[in-house]
């Protein structure tokens, strides 16, 4: 069964700020708006497609959903998962919760911030990594855990992390 292969589609690296069109947003909204309580599925669809939810998408969503812009904004800002700014090529989430803390999560967290030179919500200057905090990835017996583009990596150590980021950035260079 191929479900296990961790090959989730992730926002393409080429999609930076501005790489969306109103028609694209309209298409996503129209595909889902018939659903009861459709706003979250719609916001997910936009973020999956563009990589974040552009400011300019808000009035389009609001109009088609017959809601105010403030309402749509309010929903986006309530949820940590929704982003309103473009992200780097890789989204890196570090688990900050207790079970990972108990296995050296705090040290790992410090190492990652130092190594990448960014704080949470920051994107590295080469645009490779965006760093986000996360509170539990459900991998709590094999921590500390991080996720890279929604793929979980367990029993993480500073050394393993450095190897992982090296591999990720090398691959990207080769593709260019």
């Amino acid at each position, binding site marked *: *069964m191929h479900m296990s292969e961790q090959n989730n589609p992730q926002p393409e690296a080429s999609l930076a700020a501005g790489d969306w069109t109103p028609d694209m947003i309209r298409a996503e909204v129209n595909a889902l708006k018939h659903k009861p309580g459709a*706003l979250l599925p719609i916001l997910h669809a936009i973020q999956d497609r563009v990589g974040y939810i552009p400011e300019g998408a808000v009035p389009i969503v609001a109009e088609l959903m017959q809601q105010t812009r403030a309402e749509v904004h309010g929903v986006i800002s309530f949820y940590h998962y929704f982003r309103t700014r473009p992200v780097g090529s890789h989204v890196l989430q570090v688990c900050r*919760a*207790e*079970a990972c803390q108990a296995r050296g999560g705090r040290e790992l967290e410090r190492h990652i911030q130092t190594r990448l030179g960014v704080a949470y919500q920051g994107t590295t200057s080469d645009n490779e990594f965006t760093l986000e905090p996360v509170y*539990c990835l*459900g991998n709590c*017996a094999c921590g500390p855990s991080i996720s890279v583009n929604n793929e*979980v990596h367990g*029993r993480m150590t500073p050394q393993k992390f450095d190897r992982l980021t090296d591999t990720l950035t090398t691959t990207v260079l080769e593709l260019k």
Partner: protein
Amino acid sequence: MTTIYVPCDTTALSLGADQVARQIQQRADQQGVEIQLVRNGSRGLFWLEPLVEVDTGQGRVAYGPVVPEQVTELLESGLLAGQPGHPLYLGPIEQHPYLQRQQRLTFARIGITDPLSLADYQAHDGFAGLEKAARLTPQQIVDEVKASGLRGRGGAAFPAGIKWQTVLDEPAGQQKYVVCNADEGDSGTFADRLVMECDPYMLIEGMAIAGLAVGATQGYIYVRSEYQLSQRMLDEAILRAEAAGYLGDDVCGSGQTFHLEVRLGAGAYICGEETSLLESLEGKRGLVRSKPPLPAIEGLFGQPTVVNNVLSLAAVPYILDKGGNAYAEYGMGRSLGTLAIQLAGNIKQGGLIEMAFGVTLREILEDFGGGSFTGRPMRAVQVGGPLMAYMPASQWDTPMDYEAFAALGAGIGHGGVVVFDDTVDMGEQARFAMEFCTVESCGKCTPCRIGSVRGVEVIDRIRAGDNRDDNLVLLAELCETMVDGSLCAMGGMTPFPVQSVMKHFPEDLMARPAPVEA
């Protein structure tokens, strides 16, 4: 032909299971050995993941934990023939003491089957409960759940049968819903995830039974956004169950309709609280509603709604198949049936342990866990998630029973057990409890929203040695205000871990030499 099993749950994948599977297939091809490679679920023996099993026709023997770099040497030492000899060889896996000691009623199939194979599911009692339910009246189904004594596994331990009765008693002919709470936000928990990734039909079956019981035609599974693999597994399983007639317009020949849809959360811990979850499902901010009205009466879109945790619903197929009384034979006092204990954090042998209520915490930590991962003495254990107390060693002989834990001011919650060794700084843990609340509060009430911010500040001052005694009094008062003045358990229980640190680990609230980091 030899069958090789390589698990496909998040934990196995997080440790390289896909690579292991690919390499085994490649090497077998190179050697011209024909194998059948099955991606099974995990058995929940997480310290052994990736756990590779081999069946040459004489039962399944296992090797683990297998890192990708070891595949070559394992094959050279006869893995494809299931041979012993290699240090990773574990023997017949079903005789492993970690599994032998358990009482797996709900998790009877995990790790054994291919999660998406309907044939596997059916061959292991799958859909037997739903087939029975399809021939019963709604009241008979609800009575069976009542007889089981099943209490909600999401944290509040409310009797499931009574909740279902309330929804059933609401006038028929109106839209009713079954909502599965798969937000699993507590650190240290992964049992919901295991159900969804490793035995998704069990959850589907449980929800379909709930639908028949209360007269609901639509169900939603609200999955946290961190669990996208769960979402994909469920989406596929729902399609297949529909095609096979277990969902849809005529569930199992009952003539009843039940449709099921998965919805993704968006990274908000509070959306695990049931009314916040319902707001979120309606497409709104996840602000907690005041109760009453109960969701059972005015729930999703204002309609009568059963909201149950994944594990509550996953227990139902067994209950319908084997009878409520069979389930109620397990457990103690008013905590009947089995509990999915999730052993996590700084522990040598972490994983899923399904046992009848009544097993002591110490048995879990020592007999199953084998002590800390680091080999240092264990010092504190947080049972039941981030809103529950830290328990010192003097409390570890407590049986896992809702009432016994409540009597200590502790709780079982969703069954997570997070272990810390003696290097833990409990002052930092207390601070984190408050910090977590500042991040995750829905913001509706002041004691929670502002109180938690003040809590972090006061703990920082205490740890800096600034007016320690006065600030400890202030912290105690602040905790009381939050407990008494919060609308929901987020603000109302955040003080519990803090108070437990003040009570059981006061030495860690002395001034720290180094300043605290933000």
